[in-house]
C-alpha cells in the first residue's frame, strides 16, 4: 500500500517536472532565460511589503473568479461568461458609488449587495438561456459578456462620463466613502480578505458536506441520469449560476471598489479567463485552486518587472501560464499518465 503511494507521488512529481520543462522550452524558444524570468517575477511579486499587497490585490478577484468557476464546473457548466458576471458586479458597485448613496459610509456594504445580485442575475440569465432555450452556456455566456462590455462602454462615455470630457479612461474616481476601508499604512484590504475566507469555508462545506452540493456535482456528471433520481437537474443548473454568478459579481465589486476606485472599460482585467485556466489545471479542488491562484497572481504582479529588467513584453506571463496549463493537461491525459506511471513502476520495481 505504501509502495503504491510512493509511486503515485513520483508520478505526480514527474508530471509537474514535465509540465515545467514544457513551459521552460517555450520561454527558451522565445529567446529568454527561464531562470532569469522566474526569479525576476518572484522578486517583483514578493520583494517588498508593498509588492506583496499588490499581489494580494490581484489574488482577490482571481481567487473569487476561480471559486465561482469551481461551483459552475461542478455543475458541469462551461461558464466562459464569467467575465460578464464580473463586469456586471463592477457596474453594480459603480452604480451605488455614483448615486447619492456613494457619499455615505454604508456605500461599500451596499456595493456588495448590489454587485453580487447583478452578477447572480447575469449568471441566472445564462442558465435560463441554457435550460429554457437550449443555448449552450459558452455562447450564451460570451453573448452576455459582450452585452455587459457594451453597457460598460456606454456608461463610461454616456451617463457616467467624466466631468467635462467623456473618455475611455474611465469614470471619475468614486467618493472616498465608497472606497473599501483598508488597514495599516500598507492599505491592506481587510474586509475583502475576510469575506474571501468566509466564502472558501462555505464552498468547502457546501461541496464536500452538504446534500445540495452532492446533488450539484451529480448534475455535473450526468444531468440525464440525475433526473431519474427524482430531482430536477435544471434547478441545480440555476443554483450553480446563481452562486457562481454572485461570487464572480463580488470579484467585480472588488475590482471597482477596492482596486481601481472607478469604472474602467477593461474592469475585469481578463481575470475571469485566467481563472478558467487555474480551474482547468487544479481540477475543481478548492485548496489546489487557491495555491495555483496565488502562483498566478504572483506571476502577474511580478510580470511588470519583466519589461523593466529584462526588456521582455509583459504578455510573456500569460504565455507561460497558458503553456504550463496546457502541458499539465497533456501529462494528465489518460494515455500519457498511464505511460508515465508504467515507466515509473517498472523503474521502481527494477531497483528493488
Amino acid at each position, binding site marked *: 500500500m505504501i509502495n503504491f503511494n510512493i509511486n503515485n507521488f513520483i508520478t505526480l512529481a514527474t508530471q509537474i517536472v514535465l509540465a515545467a520543462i514544457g513551459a521552460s522550452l517555450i520561454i527558451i524558444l522565445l529567446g529568454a532565460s527561464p531562470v532569469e524570468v522566474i526569479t525576476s517575477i518572484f522578486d517583483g511579486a514578493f520583494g517588498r511589503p508593498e509588492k506583496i499587497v499588490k499581489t494580494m490585490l490581484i489574488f482577490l478577484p482571481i481567487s473569487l473568479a476561480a471559486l465561482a468557476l469551481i461551483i459552475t464546473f461542478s455543475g458541469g457548466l462551461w461558464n466562459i461568461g464569467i467575465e460578464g458576471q464580473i463586469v456586471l458586479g463592477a457596474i453594480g458597485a459603480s452604480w451605488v458609488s455614483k448615486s447619492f448613496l456613494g457619499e455615505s459610509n454604508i456605500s461599500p456594504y451596499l456595493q456588495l449587495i448590489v454587485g453580487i445580485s447583478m452578477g447572480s442575475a447575469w449568471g441566472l440569465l445564462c442558465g435560463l438561456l441554457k435550460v429554457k432555450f437550449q*443555448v449552450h452556456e459558452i*455562447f450564451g455566456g*460570451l453573448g452576455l459578456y459582450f452585452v455587459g462590455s457594451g453597457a460598460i462602454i456606454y456608461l463610461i462615455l454616456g451617463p457616467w462620463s467624466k466631468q467635462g470630457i467623456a473618455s475611455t479612461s474611465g469614470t471619475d474616481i468614486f467618493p472616498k466613502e465608497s472606497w473599501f476601508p483598508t488597514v495599516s499604512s500598507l492599505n491592506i484590504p481587510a474586509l475583502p480578505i475576510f469575506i474571501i475566507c468566509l466564502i472558501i469555508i462555505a464552498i468547502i462545506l457546501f461541496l464536500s458536506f452538504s446534500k445540495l452540493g452532492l446533488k450539484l456535482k451529480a448534475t455535473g456528471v450526468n444531468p440525464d441520469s440525475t433526473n431519474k433520481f427524482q430531482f430536477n437537474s435544471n434547478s441545480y443548473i440555476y443554483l450553480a449560476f446563481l452562486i457562481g454568478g454572485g461570487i464572480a459579481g463580488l470579484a467585480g465589486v472588488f475590482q471597482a471598489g477596492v482596486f481601481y476606485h472607478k469604472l474602467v472599460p477593461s474592469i475585469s482585467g481578463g481575470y475571469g479567463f485566467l481563472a478558467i485556466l487555474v480551474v*482547468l489545471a487544479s481540477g475543481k479542488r478548492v485548496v489546489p485552486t487557491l495555491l495555483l491562484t496565488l502562483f498566478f497572481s504572483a506571476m502577474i504582479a511580478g510580470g511588470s518587472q519583466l519589461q523593466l529588467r529584462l526588456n*521582455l513584453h509583459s504578455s510573456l506571463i500569460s504565455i507561460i501560464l497558458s503553456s504550463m*496549463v496546457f502541458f499539465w493537461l497533456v501529462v494528465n491525459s489518460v494515455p500519457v499518465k498511464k505511460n508515465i506511471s508504467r515507466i515509473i513502476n517498472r523503474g521502481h520495481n527494477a531497483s528493488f
Partner: protein
Amino acid sequence: MLPFESSVVTVISLSAPIILVVIGETITEKSGVINLSIEGTLLITALTAFAVSVTTGSPFLGFLCAGLVGSIAALVIIICDTKLGMDQIAIGFILTIFLGKLSSFLGKEYVRIPGPYFQELSIPILKDIPYLGPSFFDQNIIVIFSFLMIPATWYFIEKTRLGLIVKAVGENPVSAQNRGINPEKVRIIATVVGGILIGFGGAAFSLHAKFGWSENHTGNYGWICLAIVIFGGWNPIRAAIGAYSFGIFQIIALKMQSVALGLTQVLPLIPFPLMILTLIFIQRFNRSDRTTNLPKILNAFFGGQSPENIGKPLEKN
C-alpha cells in the same frame, strides 16, 4: 457612382476575412468539433501573414503561411481530443489565450509598419456591371476567393458524398463507424481544413481588410465569428449572410462616428444579442415536432440544427 455602390463594395470587401473564418468553423463544427481557439488563431495568423509578407515581399507566401499556422493550431486541438482524450473546449480556450498573447509578444517589430499589398484583379467587362462589378470583379484575390468559397462549401456539404460523411460524423459518429467510416480520421481532416481557412481569414485581416499589424489587431473578431457560425445555423450560405450583415453594422457604425461616439463603440457588439435571439428562434421553431408546420421560407431563415454530436468526444469501440 450609383447610390450606395461604394457602401456595398466596402461591405463585401471588409467581410472577406469573416467569411473565410465562419466557413472554416462551419466545416469544423459540421464534423462535431468546436474549434474554440479562433480568437487566438486569428491574431497569430494575422501576424504570421503580415510578418512573412513584409520579410519576403510576397503577400501570397504570407497568406499560405497563415493557413499553415491555422492548420497547426487546429491539429493540436483535434490530436489532443482524439488521441489523448482531452476536452476540445479546454484546449481551444487555452490556445485562445496562448496564441493571442504570443502574437503580442512576437509582433512588437511589426507594429504599424508598411508592407506589400495584393493587387486588384480587374476582370474586363464584368467589372462594369453595376454593383456586382466593383464588388466582385474589381477586387483582390482574397475577396474573390472568400466569395467563391461560399457556394463551394455549400455544394461540398450538401451535395457531395464527402460532405455527407462529414455531416454523418458530426451527427452520429457511432452509426458512421458502423457504415465503415473512420470518424477520427474525418474529424481530423475536417478540423485541419477548417483551421487552414481560419488561418486564411487571419491573413485576410492583416493583408487586406485591416491592413498591417498592431497589438490585439483582430481583437474580439474571433468571438464574433463564433457567434456568426451559430447565427448561420451551420449553413455556409446563411453564415455568409450573417457575416455580410455584420459588415453592414460596421459600416453604419463607421458612418455614425461623428454623430454618436458611444454608439460606434457599442454597435460592433450587436452580433451577440442577435446570436442569442437566433438561438432562441432555432429552438422555438425548429423542434422536430414543429418543423413540418413551419412555412418553408421561415424554415430557411430560422431552421438549422446544431450537429447532434458537437463538442462531444468520440466513443472508442
